[in-house]
């Protein structure tokens, strides 16, 4: 077990190094921040001074090393645009994105699994077929369109929910949360549905097909032949086996939710890191872009690592194979 985890952590570190290289390369090859930071009236000294101040005059390898050294400590330099430390800006923005992603993820997982199980157990039922057809819409409509439709319906026509922003937030020791105010909660509804719908339908369709496969297995037939109740057969025996392959995908989808938050945050003007990133692109604010890339990849890698470790607790066969026993 320990060897396995060390191996996986090593792989994760390698992935992060490579992403770090890509992120860092942007400093060299994308635009020239000096152009953006200094207006039209600039002198050659101004440029040199700023270059030195930003460390842009040093060799590539040294800069990369410094970048990594800083990144490990959470130091991504200073935003070209805002002139403040990137880490500070990200920390300010992170709660908005994380809360949105969390609500979307929980919705997607809960409803995805529940509907997947339902449509698998009642595969020939009318309602199950309606849900399956409806899910095609969820998979095929682009996220921004779903967002705009929801805004049109619930904000413009019905006027029930806000169409942009986070509503009121409460500051909890540096973490600004929208969970504690009514307007904050209301503001979460449309964006989290927009963000989570695609993942929910994906999870649902996957759970359904895996579960149908599992329900065909001999051990399910044997469980029925032993007279176990439908509830035990479906949930204890079938669902658990269904979840083994589904968990990986769920993990990837959680990562995707955080990444796709860019679109949803733009549609709803949600003040999270995604919106920050979009604005950073417009201004070629490379430290912010690089830090955002690193942040997203750390989350992807972290979630994957968690998923792999989770496998150990779900599937006894892995425990045996990997630890070399039996």
């Amino acid at each position, binding site marked *: 077990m320990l060897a396995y985890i060390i191996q996986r952590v090593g792989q994760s570190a390698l992935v992060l190094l490579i992403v770090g290289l890509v992120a860092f390369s942007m400093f060299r090859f994308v635009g020239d921040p000096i152009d953006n930071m200094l207006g039209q009236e600039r002198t050659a000294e101004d440029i040199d001074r700023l270059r030195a101040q930003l460390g842009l005059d040093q060799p590539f390898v040294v800069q990369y090393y410094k970048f990594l050294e800083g990144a490990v400590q959470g130091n991504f330099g200073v935003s070209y645009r805002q002139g403040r430390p990137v880490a500070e800006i990200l920390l300010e923005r992170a709660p908005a994105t994380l809360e949105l992603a969390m609500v979307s993820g929980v919705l997607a997982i809960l409803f995805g699994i529940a509907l997947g199980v339902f449509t698998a157990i009642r595969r020939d039922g009318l309602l199950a077929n309606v849900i399956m057809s409806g899910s095609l819409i969820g998979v095929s409509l682009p996220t921004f369109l779903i967002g705009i439709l929801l805004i049109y319906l619930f904000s413009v026509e019905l006027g029930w929910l806000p169409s942009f922003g986070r509503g009121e937030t409460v500051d909890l020791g540096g973490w600004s949360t929208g969970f504690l105010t009514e307007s904050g909660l209301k503001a979460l509804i449309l964006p989290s549905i927009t963000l989570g719908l695609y993942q929910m339908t994906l999870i649902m369709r996957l759970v359904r097909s895996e579960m149908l496969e599992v329900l065909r297995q001999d051990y399910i037939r*044997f469980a029925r*032949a*032993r007279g176990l109740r439908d509830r035990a057969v479906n949930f204890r025996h079938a669902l658990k086996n269904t979840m083994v392959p589904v968990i990986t995908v769920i993990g990837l989808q959680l990562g995707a939710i955080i990444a796709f938050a860019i679109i949803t945050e733009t549609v709803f003007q949600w003040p999270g890191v995604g919106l920050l990133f979009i604005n950073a692109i417009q201004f070629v604010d490379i430290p912010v872009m690089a830090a955002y890339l690193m942040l997203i990849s750390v989350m992807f890698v972290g979630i994957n690592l968690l998923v792999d470790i989770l496998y150990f607790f779900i599937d006894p066969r892995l425990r045996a194979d990997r630890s070399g026993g039996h």
Partner: protein
Amino acid sequence: MADPVLSIRDLSVEIPTRHGIVRPVDGVSYDIAAGEILGVVGESGAGKSMAGNAVIGLLNPPAHISKGEIWLNGKRIDHLTGDAMRRLRGKEIGMVFQDPLTSLNPLLRIGDQLTETMLTHLPISRSEAEKRAVAALEEVGIPGAAERVNSYPHEFSGGMRQRVVIALALCAEPSLIIADEPTTALDVSVQAQIIALLRRLCRDRGTAVMLITHDMGVIAEATDRVAVMYAGRLAELGPVRDVLTHPQHPYTHGLMASTPLASQGKSRLHQIPGAMPRLDAVPDGCAFNPRCPHATDKCRQAPVPRVSNGQAACWYPLVEEKVI
């Protein structure tokens, strides 16, 4: 003789298909008494499993019982559905499947699978069920049962897993066991042990057994009576010794001649020419007539009467001296 545990009367199973209705089980009748082992033989596709599934109420739709009756311990069960039938499964009728590698849930400890089954059917406490789970494993010959209850299926060999499957099938003490080719997937070396185990447990408890198999050696060793199926119908039914040594039905005769056990001493295995008809093309009259060396016009036209014990479904049953 006391009432049989299982009594099947004129049972038919039908499946609607694109090419019309097929009848994988067609007018089959037999009884199994307490403590008796009935062997069911026949070519692949003869309807052996289908008949067993009909008894335990696990036919896959659209297959369904279209005719006949099934009686278990004096109660009629063929019309039971849903929860009423579920209560019988495991409690009154146990089932052992062919492949022990796939019949156990890989994610649950075998002890949990045992206690779960007992707690579903028996009015006992969890700790009592746990105690009985260990005893059940001991009974089927699993060494170190007290620790092994905590093992997962993949930690057992194939033969040991089939012992676990048998323990599971028997743990709520059913009066009938349906064993559908319980040794086909196993190593030859452990097949005999598993059959001996099944036989001993059922004899001790007076459990009736429907033992579906292709193995004439198993039939000869373990069963009391044999039912021979052909194209969904019962070709012959009788005490094992009679059927093996003096088969009355030409199909049974061919079947015996084509198995190594019965042909010892002969230089070549005798093969029945042709193949069993597809279910959507069963010939008129006797289903075996295209392959039968004794077939006459009568066989090709008149349906043969259904058999009862000690009989063959044949217009011209073989007598002892007759040689093909």
